[in-house]
């Protein structure tokens, strides 16, 4: 019997889609050739439109519910653990490393799930101003985040490029090049975890093809690069970003509270006290 081979597609707006360009790039795994979507400029624009809509829905979801949806994601991955381990092994990882990667992934999702309804208490505070005013600083998610994942084959590294911004209520366009088969498989568990459509879009392709489109798109509020780029690439992204004062973070911290800080805008509200 001939094996049935999976077709990997981008995941945009809660749907599995091919690149509108019709273009693909090839990845060979265990003597099988997979044609992965080669994301185009138009695909990025569609993803941003979907992410803007997803941002509205996801950022207005209560922290309590965001926590449960993230926790559900860990349940989904736990249930599909074997298939992830197998996929990582197909990429050449040892069984031990593959198991470790998935265990760490699940642990990190649970950690961030628990942070969803706590980060505002850690990152915001009342300010003791010296007049009769109530004054509080709290945070809003920054909006639509484009996140370039690293080049290692790893679910955990992919997750660490997504979870900090997703947890605080940003919508995320996650883009993978080398790690794209893992990312596109992961989209299936996102689809099964009650995330509102557009809150997380997952794309694959060659980053150099869309570098300009991403960094110039004024509706992407922040670009997070979890991969070391050559200096020309980084310079070009940061120059384009300056045209709309877009935030760019190159290899941002993924440790603890500092992992979420880039994705927050601090809002300070004043009100007089009186009778």
């Amino acid at each position: 019997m001939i094996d049935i081979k999976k077709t990997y597609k981008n995941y945009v707006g809660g749907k599995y889609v091919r690149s509108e360009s019709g273009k693909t790039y090839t990845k060979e795994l265990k003597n099988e050739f997979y044609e992965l979507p080669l994301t185009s400029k138009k695909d990025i624009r569609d993803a941003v439109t979907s992410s803007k809509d997803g941002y509205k829905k996801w950022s207005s979801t209560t922290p309590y519910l965001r926590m449960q949806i993230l926790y559900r994601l860990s349940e989904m991955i736990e249930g599909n653990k074997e298939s992830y381990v197998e996929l990582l092994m197909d990429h050449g990882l040892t069984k031990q490393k593959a198991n470790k990667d998935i265990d760490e992934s699940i642990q990190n999702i649970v950690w961030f799930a628990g942070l969803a309804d706590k980060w505002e208490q850690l990152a915001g505070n009342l300010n003791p101003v010296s007049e009769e005013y109530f004054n509080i600083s709290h945070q809003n998610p920054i909006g639509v985040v484009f996140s370039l994942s690293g080049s290692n084959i790893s679910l955990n590294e992919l997750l660490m490029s997504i979870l900090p911004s997703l947890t605080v209520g940003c919508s995320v366009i996650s883009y993978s090049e080398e790690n794209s088969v893992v990312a596109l498989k992961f989209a299936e568990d996102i689809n099964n975890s009650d995330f509102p459509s557009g809150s997380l879009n997952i794309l694959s392709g060659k980053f150099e093809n869309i570098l300009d489109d991403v960094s110039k798109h004024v509706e992407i509020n922040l670009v997070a690069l979890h991969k070391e780029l050559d200096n020309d690439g980084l310079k070009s992204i940061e120059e384009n970003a300056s045209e709309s004062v877009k935030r760019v973070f190159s290899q941002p911290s993924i440790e603890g509270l500092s992992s979420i800080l880039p994705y927050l805008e601090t809002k300070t509200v004043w009100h007089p006290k009186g009778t």
Partner: protein
Amino acid sequence: MIDWEYSESIESAEIVSIKKKYANYIGGKFLEPKSKKYLDTISPSTENLLAKVPLSNQQDVNSAVNAARIGFETWSKISPSQRSRYLFKIARLIQERSREFAVLESLDGGKPIKESRDFDLPQVAANFFYFAGWADKLDLSWSTKSLKPYGVVGQIIPWNFPLLMLAWKIAPALATGNTVVLKPAESTPLTALLFAEICEQAGLPAGVVNIVTGDGSTGSLIVNHKDINKIAFTGSTQVGKLIQKSLAGREVGLTLELGGKAANIVYEDAAIDQAVEGVVNGIFFNQGHVCCAGSRLLLQESIHDQFISKLEKRMQSLRVGNPLDKNTDIGAINSKEQLDKITNLVNEGLEDGGELFQTQCDLPGNGFWFKPTLFTNVQPSYSIAREEIFGPVLTTLTFRTPEEAVEIANNTEYGLSAGVWTEKGSKILWTADRLDAGVVWANTFNKFDPSSPFGGYKESGFGREGGRHGLLSYLKASS
């Protein structure tokens, strides 16, 4: 009707002695510029020459950055409690010499003495006091020990609150263990140079604070200097974008506090008289030379006529004139260049079809002045409703529903501040949650405190100044 004769009350300028020529402050010494070039700084209320200050060139900036690098070796190694004590000492010295600073600020910048005396200087001292206490508590501030100072920080500040912007920049930078090269604005360098004396009096180690004066070219030399670790800039969005671009591909930290076009939303259930006061304070404070000024008045349609009539009456009582007169509400426009910009935008507003109201008042013969101005019948597409005017000019737009108010308020590339006026608490919180603005003033406007973070969303910049959040602008996560 009794015709009360106006009696002015002029603050004496004798308390401050202005030198004819100033030097840069580098490595604890006052150094003549290697450029051998100088700029004139004038008083915008008289157009009289006050002093000459260095127009610093590459060599001068090199000296300052080198001095700051050497200073960093000392400053980053002394104990945090010592750093704290230096900042406390600076705060006290500022309090003691505050009248001198206030008079100099009003002379050089044109702002009313009642503002420089009662707002700027108390806030300057308060900022040094506030950050003094953080210097030895940084490990507690964000529950982590992995935050480290950047090193040498280049700071470029504007002319609207010269000494206060210096305090906003220098106090947190020093508290976190950085050293600085600060460039005051071309038109208002004098209080920064006087502050150099305070550093001397406080015995601050050489090179911790370096002050170089100059114009935009000097600022650009600082931004492009190879040995700078971080740039902190307050000024226009246009220049902020250029700085961000200059730093592309370089490992240099950046915080930007840029322009704004704040909506001041007045709902029909607001306390109208208080709102009128707040709207006046929101736009006419400091001649409207305020990045967070409430320059777009958003009125609920039902109260438009009543509100405008009260507002015009209140505006008419604003006193425009000599900044050193203690009764003056609105001083001089900071420069000829700024006056031209305001004039051009107001003319554009008229051509577009806006309805103009200006107060009836006599303006002094010399100096740069602009009458308090209100536009009604404005469309959101007019440039007076979109561009930052940075002067005493208020534009009015109307709305019917809270949803529409929020939509209009957020319909700008800026996101620095906003105001909300209503007596209904739930409506304040609902509105504040939906405004894309770093600071929201509810039933008040233009309030500041060193413990209160300030900074913008969107194209108003990134990073915060003030408060616990302000520390993050001068600390980087390091493993």
